[in-house]
């Protein structure tokens, strides 16, 4: 072997080793990158359970909100409809009362009863009666009514009919002479004062199964 051959062998060996070193480095580099990707996916997947659990919780909350709003809306729809039906029934009752005022005798009987009732509640004495224009024309037996109230209260009673153009479909207002105490037995007044009771009773009938 010549010296030149020996030197060539040394250089060739070194080159081969260098090549192997680079080859190994490249292989390691690829592995490092590959491992890193795998780690990233693995780390992200560890968070998956938590993210999905949170999403399910949020979904449940959204669902509850939507359904709860729908149920509240449903309840309001039914309440509104019931109120509407009751209001319609009260309106029809008013119409019936208006018709009823035309049945002279029966109406006069009720009107007398209302006057007696109001007069007794006020404790008798000097009282004023207010009626609408039409009812002023009715042949009410005021003396008889005074007598009945006197019997009920034990106090002399005088009814005075006052023309103040009372705006009502029917009924009466009775007040003390000094106007300090007023009893409103007009049909509108009676409906208003009994409104809650009327609504309750109408509701029982209209919506019972």
């Amino acid at each position, binding site marked *: 072997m010549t010296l030149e051959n020996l030197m060539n062998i040394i250089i060739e060996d070194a080159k081969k080793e260098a090549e192997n070193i680079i080859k190994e*480095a490249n292989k390691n580099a690829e592995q490092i990158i590959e*491992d890193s990707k795998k780690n990233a*996916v693995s780390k992200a997947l560890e968070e998956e359970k938590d993210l999905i659990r949170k999403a399910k919780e949020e979904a449940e909350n959204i669902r509850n909100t939507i359904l709860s709003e*729908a149920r509240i809306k449903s309840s309001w729809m039914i309440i509104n*409809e019931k109120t509407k039906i009751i209001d319609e*029934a009260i309106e029809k009752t008013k119409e019936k009362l208006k018709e*009823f005022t035309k049945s002279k005798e029966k109406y006069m009987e009720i009107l007398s*009863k209302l006057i007696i009732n109001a007069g007794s509640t006020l404790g008798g004495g000097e009282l004023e009666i207010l009626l609408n224009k039409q009812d002023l024309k009715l042949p009410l037996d005021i003396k008889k009514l005074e007598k009945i109230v006197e019997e009920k209260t034990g106090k002399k009673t005088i009814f005075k009919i006052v023309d103040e153009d009372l705006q009502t479909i029917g009924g009466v207002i009775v007040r003390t002479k000094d106007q300090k105490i007023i009893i409103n037995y007009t*049909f509108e007044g009676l409906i208003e004062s009994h409104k809650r009771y009327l609504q309750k009773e109408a509701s029982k009938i209209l919506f019972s199964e």
Partner: protein
Amino acid sequence: MSQEIKPLKKGEKIIEPLESIIETEKQAIRIIEDAKAKAKKIIEDAKIKAQNEYNIAFQETISKISEKASLIIEEEKRKADLEAKKIIKDTEDKIKDLREKASKKIDEAIKKMLSIILMEE
């Protein structure tokens, strides 16, 4: 291929060839050292690239999971909306039924209210 080193002949110089061999060895060492340096650089670059790849892969996976999570929410919302619509539709039907039944009892209700208003009770 087997090669053998021939013995020196008388008078042949020994220092110069040795120096050449030493120089060649040094050159060989440099080649290997260069390769090691390059290898080190390759690994360092790979580590930087690995960090970038980590971030990309992590974000991509998280995005896919988030998409899945959004779908869960959307699906539940869609189902709830349908149920809510059904509740309202059922209520509308219930209201129709309610009105129909009430209309049959309206006269009785009016009669009752009249008796209250006219103090017949």
